[in-house]
């Protein structure tokens, strides 16, 4: 077994093209997913059939594997009379999937807000939009950011499944290179490395944000040496 880096280096334009598409579809799904999730969370506080509809929507998106959702959107769109390229269908599926995860984050954040903020803002005469913009949104940003970054890393990883419908992202390009070189080891190590790099950069962002937001934690600080031996794990997760 000898590693042949030339296999990967010779195909660098394909890896770059794949990385660009992966970042593109993830960015679109991020923006679209957050927007959809905001609407979902806003609506989920209303009652009646809207609430039920939202619960069904979230239940389906969380209970079905992304790869199945991807095929459902891709093969289902023509039934709605909409014929779109695989890139569009894949990005749409990822956006829907992302909306379910982001709405979980947003909902938890909203419920975590101190009670009465909204009412107080309205009571001092702020308009709905002003209350949202100046009171609610800034308070949500800090606790919502780290889990949002985590969900975003999950979405970037899920986007690899789009290769199954021929979207030219990183995994697809890896399969193409593998097919031409018969060198799966080198190719998939390289592809894994590129995904890891993307996740690493994003998680550094998350750590930086977490540090900026950190407000001291009670329970673990009071621990003594014996408890520390069992309750704190050393290996750091990057």
């Amino acid at each position, binding site marked *: 077994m000898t590693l042949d880096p030339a296999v990967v280096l010779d195909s660098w334009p394909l890896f770059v093209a794949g990385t660009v598409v992966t970042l593109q579809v993830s960015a679109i799904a991020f923006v679209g997913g957050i927007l959809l999730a905001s609407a979902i969370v806003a609506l989920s506080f209303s009652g009646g059939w809207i609430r039920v509809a939202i619960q069904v929507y979230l239940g389906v998106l969380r209970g079905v594997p992304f790869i199945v959702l991807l095929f459902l959107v891709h093969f289902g769109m023509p039934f709605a009379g909409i014929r779109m390229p695989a890139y569009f269908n894949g990005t749409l599926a990822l956006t829907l999937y992302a909306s379910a995860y982001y709405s979980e984050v947003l909902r938890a954040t909203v419920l975590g807000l101190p009670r009465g903020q909204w009412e107080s803002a309205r009571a001092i005469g702020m308009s709905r939009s002003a209350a949202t913009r100046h009171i609610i949104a800034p308070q949500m940003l800090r606790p919502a950011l780290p889990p949002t970054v985590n969900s975003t890393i999950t979405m970037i*990883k899920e986007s690899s499944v789009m290769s199954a419908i021929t979207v030219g992202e990183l995994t697809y390009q890896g399969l193409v290179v593998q097919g031409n070189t018969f060198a799966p080891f080198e190719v998939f190590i390289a592809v894994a490395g590129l995904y890891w790099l993307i996740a690493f950069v994003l998680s550094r962002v998350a750590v930086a944000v977490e540090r900026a937001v950190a407000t001291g934690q009670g329970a673990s600080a009071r621990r003594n040496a014996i408890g520390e031996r069992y309750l704190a794990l050393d290996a750091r997760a990057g």
Partner: protein
Amino acid sequence: MKFDFGFFLESLPRIGEAAFTNIQLAIVIFALATLGGTGLTIARALKRSVLNGAIGILISFVRGTPLMIQIFLFFYALPALGVRLSPVHAGVLAIALNSAVFITEIMRGGLSGMDPGPIEAATALGLRAPQIWGLVVLPQLFRTILPMLVNEGTIIVKGTALLSIITVVEALRTAQQLGAANFRPFEPMVGAGLVFLAVNLVLAACAGVAERRYATARA
């Protein structure tokens, strides 16, 4: 295009039958992942620098790369190192390793919130590390993280669908085969979606029952 309801109904039994493969795979994977995750957790608590460095790299790698690429590495790349695995074995090991890492992270979260009191008491009674893990820490830990373990279980069930890509004949691949044979991929795919949904709903219901049981056992 019109939805062929007859074809949809026709394909459902075969997809439903194939879902038992997903369930079996998920059970094996979950058992391996829980064992692996617990092993990793205990290893991390040993605080040996070389070991922890290696585990840290593993965690970072698994969390930073797609499960699909991990499956490809096990299936396509390991043979290049002389390790030959069938699609089922490669897939089970890949998902189990992935979940083991997420489970050890869940455990880390659970441990950091745990009361050190019982451990101090056990130490004072002269129990040794293996006993403390087995009798004190782990039972308490598993009770705390049960809801998150169940959540990991649904992630594992969903992960088994990815094995269709390396030709494991489970619910999704069965749906794809039916779709390809009839040139109507959508109807069986709806069937596959419903089947996965049903499995995960059942799992969620079981989790509810288990949680209530534990809750009363604790009370």
